[in-house]
């Protein structure tokens, strides 16, 4: 008797909660636990808070309230799959998989299910080719843009010539960390710098070997593709060996407060790429304070507002909301479907006026998405850390990357994927 009852409860419990219709559903595959929780929390907070803001301030998007379906992945691929399967039936409009592994999982699945994915600044870089990856978007910038932007920055501070300079890439020894290698190699041929590769195994708690090598070889610049605990340890070690911090540039996933604060004042001068604004000096934060914080509706503890990763989460939510608005315009329906959402994302246009009207002037690059180009123009900027004020400062505009080089790489990789999976052109 007891057993059957238990079984019944179990079956009922395993089946996920029933879908809420008539809402715009945004699943959030967040990771507030596990090895990368420190980075996952601010992003998830930012993503959630922006939807709360839209609901509280504007009464939803086009009059339809947004609903956030948060599902904890712990940055774990299998849990990501479980989250996807449990949320996709509930009208989910767009997925932010938030991990390279989960993105790769979901690319074929979401494509089959007709739900768009927005992997913003991560995931499969060649998904920028919308002709092959019809449902996948990675605007406004991808890893290969990032690598190029870093090199462009070095070109800029060297008056356009970095031939003969030595650059070391220190990277997380995983698919993610290996992303920039090919781009950097191609660019090395073009610009004539020497590239040294230094992998760091997960988790990267111990990097003495790598940094002793950097100390011995004294490269002119160090570029970092780090993640998780690898970042603060690397920055700390760089401070320890007194490497000139202004010659040390991290990708956007190596540029949060979590990464620099542990190294203390020595970290001042460290640079990181970014494709969105830093700090909380934007009008939208007044609204967030008023509608979200003061009403006690923050997703997390509310202590992350204005941090780099919070801003990124908020930026992702903002882009999703704008895509919904675009879709609503195109299809003339307020309560859109995932397929309409896809159309909206593909027609998304972010202009300076739009961002200003949202209270986010110059928060991100202006860009537009097209059927062929799901990656945007690949604009990005550089921010620099100032430990004394505890702030990141933008030290460059959103500037373009070397699309000649990158587009060729994207075409090559996506063509291979299309051939392997028998995908036909999506744009004709």
């Amino acid at each position, binding site marked *: 008797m007891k057993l059957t009852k238990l079984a019944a409860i179990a079956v009922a419990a395993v089946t*996920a*909660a029933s879908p809420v219709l008539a809402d715009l559903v945004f699943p959030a595959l967040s990771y*507030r636990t596990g090895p990368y929780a420190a980075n996952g929390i601010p992003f998830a907070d930012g993503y959630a808070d922006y939807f709360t803001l839209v609901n509280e301030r504007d009464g939803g998007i086009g009059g339809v309230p947004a609903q956030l379906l*948060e599902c904890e992945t712990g940055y774990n*691929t299998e849990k990501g799959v479980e989250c996807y399967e449990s949320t996709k039936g509930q009208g989910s409009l767009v997925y932010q998989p938030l991990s390279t592994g989960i993105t*790769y999982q979901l690319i074929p699945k979401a494509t089959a299910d007709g739900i768009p994915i927005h992997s913003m600044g991560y995931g499969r870089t060649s998904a920028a080719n919308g002709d092959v990856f019809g449902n996948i978007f990675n605007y406004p910038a991808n890893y290969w843009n990032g690598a190029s932007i870093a090199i462009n920055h070095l070109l800029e501070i060297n008056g356009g010539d970095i031939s003969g300079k030595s650059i070391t890439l220190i990277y997380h020894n995983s698919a993610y960390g290996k992303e920039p290698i090919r781009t950097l190699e191609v660019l090395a041929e073009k610009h004539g710098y020497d590239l040294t590769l230094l992998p760091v195994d997960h988790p990267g708690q111990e990097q003495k070997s790598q940094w002793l090598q950097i100390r011995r070889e004294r490269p002119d610049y160090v570029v970092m593709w780090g993640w998780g605990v690898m970042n603060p340890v690397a920055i700390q070690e760089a401070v320890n060996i007194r490497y000139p911090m202004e010659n040390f540039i991290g990708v956007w996933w190596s540029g949060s407060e979590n990464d620099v604060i542990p190294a203390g004042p020595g970290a001042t001068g460290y640079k990181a790429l970014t494709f969105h604004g830093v700090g909380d000096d934007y009008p939208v934060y007044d609204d967030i304070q008023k509608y979200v914080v003061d009403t006690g509706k923050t997703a997390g503890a509310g202590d992350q507002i204005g941090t780099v990763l919070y801003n990124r989460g908020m930026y992702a939510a903002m882009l999703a909301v704008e895509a919904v608005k675009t879709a609503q315009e195109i299809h003339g329906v307020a309560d859109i479907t995932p397929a309409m959402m896809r159309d909206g994302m593909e027609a998304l246009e972010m202009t300076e006026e739009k961002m200003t009207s949202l209270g986010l002037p110059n928060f991100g690059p202006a860009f537009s998405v097209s059927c062929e180009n799901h990656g945007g123009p690949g604009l990005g900027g550089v921010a620099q850390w100032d430990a004394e004020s505890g702030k990141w400062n933008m030290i460059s505009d959103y500037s373009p990357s070397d699309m000649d080089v990158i587009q060729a*790489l994207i075409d090559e990789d996506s063509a291979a994927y299309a051939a392997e*999976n028998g995908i036909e052109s999506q744009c004709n």
Partner: protein
Amino acid sequence: MFYRESGDFKTTYAKDTQTFPIKLDRMGYYVILAVALILVPIMLMKDVGGGANYWTNAIFLPFLIWAVASIGLNILVGYCGQLSLGSGGFMAVGAYASYKLMTWDVPFIGELNFVVVVILSGVITAGVGILFGLPSLRIKGFYLAVATLAAQFFLVWLFNKVPWFYNYSASGQISVPTRSVLGFQVTGATAAPEAKYLLCLVILIVVALVARNLTRGRIGRSWMAIRDMDIAAEIIGVAPLKTKLSAFGVSSFFIGVAGALFFAVYLGAAEVGEAFGIQKSFLLLFMVIIGGLGSIFGSIVGAAFMVLMPVLLKNIMVGHLNWATDIAAHFEFVIVGALIILFLILEPHGLAQLWRLLKDKLRLWPFPH
């Protein structure tokens, strides 16, 4: 009253050694098989309740595949007594072997059949397993467990480092091409849930039967002899190295099959460090110990526990109680940890033993004395 062996006389040795000596157990077994093989696929096909994809991709597939791997590890740890923490690496071997085989245009044959791919992946993994099993002749117990971590870390490093293994793709991710078995697509996102489910289920059943057959005969007894007392095993003519290596081989074969399925059918895309990292090795060991060392049934129950319990807890706490996801995730750890400890205190020999005791009670019920 009804759960009895009396009156159920065994007249041959074959009948005496059958898997389910009690009639009711046998019937239960056939009922479960019928439900699993016929009813569930029909429900999945008709998409009863609209959850076919969820049930298949989030529950059935991981459970079935982990059960295969868990049986594999149980042969090594439970039957042969050799602690191994290299399973994640061996699963990776299975996965990458299947990837290379699937993307290999075989001369004269062309595309290999998926079942052949899975079996060959198992064979390749068995070879690797035997290689890394060699130190077991000299190293024992926890020392061996730690030594097998060398395999784990080395294999992950290797698959990450050598581009040949991932066909020189830009990021090092491997993605499965679509493959069919008997005309039904079983890999890729567009495969029908019931096809994937049935493939994994049939493989699990075959693996369980083979494991049962191996462990009930000469080879199984030689493994257990090594486990219980290696000196006495030698005295009855069991060659220690050969026997240990055969356990490593068989165990790795199953784990390799599981790895191939894990990548090709369940995940569809994988990256070695993330999909087959050290935590997978530990997870598999938990399944084996929680389920019951030296029990095929226990392996399956252990896999069910470790795969389903977190999903169950999550769905209760987040789906029904509407807790914040992070608090639920933390509680998930607390509860799973506490349950593991509780089960061990109640019955150190695993869930399978708990079940056996329950049956023994039932056999005597209602006259326990």
